[in-house]
């Protein structure tokens, strides 16, 4: 793995190309790249584009594993191109293809639109109806203890790269399955004590193509580049839904705003907000 001594090599990149204007179907093309130790797959793709074939297309942005743009299938495994060094994977040949289970726009660029639609369907934001006044005119923080934070922290590290969706066996055949990323994010908000939106998410998460189409193959957690462990989130989501069905769900006290504890005085340590840029109607 990462402790292997890397030796400069010539590596063949076999890349699945597809040009929507000219091609009927994808095909493979070979490029020989001289790889120095430390080069990532993303660096290799840049070398190809700059010196051999300027028409190669793929997504990238931060080149450091936080934006989630460069997800692709490398030697059969879904991973971020920027996060993995070529010589850690192979010193002979890299087979690079776009993420499976998404349709291909061009070359290595998948269409992630469906994933984001499913994500939206699970209301992945704070829903808190009981505190409307506080939400509009905040007077203080919603404090989270360490225990409350760790309930959802690892699931909040998701960078929406789509690697988990590519690795999921259910998504391989079922287009309508929500997928590990949306479900894990749904659980992230359910587990957040500040959130009150479980009822809104329940019908989507417990739907025919919701959490129950996961059968714990665990591939999503296997490939996740940020350790989000969506498989764990989905099983915990199922437990929540079943407990709720049997009316065994403990309704916690939730997280109270600071103002409800100390009266409606705004915490003096918090600076005033900037003036509204949009007229409030």
């Amino acid at each position, binding site marked *: 793995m990462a402790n292997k001594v890397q030796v400069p090599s010539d590596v063949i990149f076999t890349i699945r190309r597809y040009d929507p204007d000219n091609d009927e179907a994808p095909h493979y093309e070979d490029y020989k790249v001289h790889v120095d130790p430390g080069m990532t797959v993303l660096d290799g793709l840049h070398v190809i584009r700059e010196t051999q074939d300027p028409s190669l297309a793929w997504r990238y942005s931060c080149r450091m594993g936080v934006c989630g743009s460069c997800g692709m299938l490398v030697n059969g495994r879904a991973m971020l191109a920027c996060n993995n060094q070529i010589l850690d994977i192979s010193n002979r040949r890299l087979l690079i293809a776009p993420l499976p289970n998404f349709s291909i726009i061009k070359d290595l660029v998948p269409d992630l639109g469906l994933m984001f639609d499913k994500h939206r369907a699970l209301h992945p934001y704070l829903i808190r109806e009981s505190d409307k006044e506080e939400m509009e005119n905040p007077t203080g923080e919603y404090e989270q203890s360490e225990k409350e934070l760790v309930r959802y922290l690892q699931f909040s590290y998701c960078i929406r790269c789509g690697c988990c969706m590519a690795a999921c066996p259910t998504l391989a055949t*079922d287009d*309508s399955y929500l997928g590990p990323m949306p479900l894990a994010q749904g659980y992230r908000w359910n587990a957040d004590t500040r959130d009150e939106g479980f009822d809104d998410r329940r019908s989507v998460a417990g739907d*025919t193509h919701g959490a*129950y*189409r996961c059968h714990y193959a665990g591939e999503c957690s296997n490939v996740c580049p940020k350790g989000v462990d969506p498989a764990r989130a989905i099983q915990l989501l199922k437990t929540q839904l079943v407990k*709720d*069905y049997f009316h065994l769900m403990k309704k916690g006290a939730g997280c109270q705003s600071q103002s409800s504890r100390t009266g409606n005085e705004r915490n003096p340590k918090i600076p005033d907000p900037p003036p509204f840029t949009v007229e409030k109607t």
Partner: protein
Amino acid sequence: MRETKWWAWHMIAGIVIFVLLGLHMLITHFDDILGWFNVLGPSHAIEWQNVVARAQDVFFAATYIILLVAALFHGLYGARTIICEMNIGVGVRKFVDVLFWLVGLSLLIVGTWAAIASMAIKV
């Protein structure tokens, strides 16, 4: 919510089957070694006198019916799950649901009738 209900009972049925079918496997396949179920005698579990002995025992008749319900529900819901994950349309899914309900209920009626009718066999 409906899917939650069905899936929750799918899990519960699985546990019920684990216990009852385990028992059934012990009786039909392991009793030669274990000899625990002496009410059947030391002979083979599927020979006629043992079959009748079990059929007329209320415990066996009742647990056969429970096992039948649990296994039909668990198995058919599992098969429905596999089919639903194959990108079928809503219409096909509804057809599969109706078909499986029909198959399940018919086999349930057949099996329950057999369990009750065989309590009255004369050896």
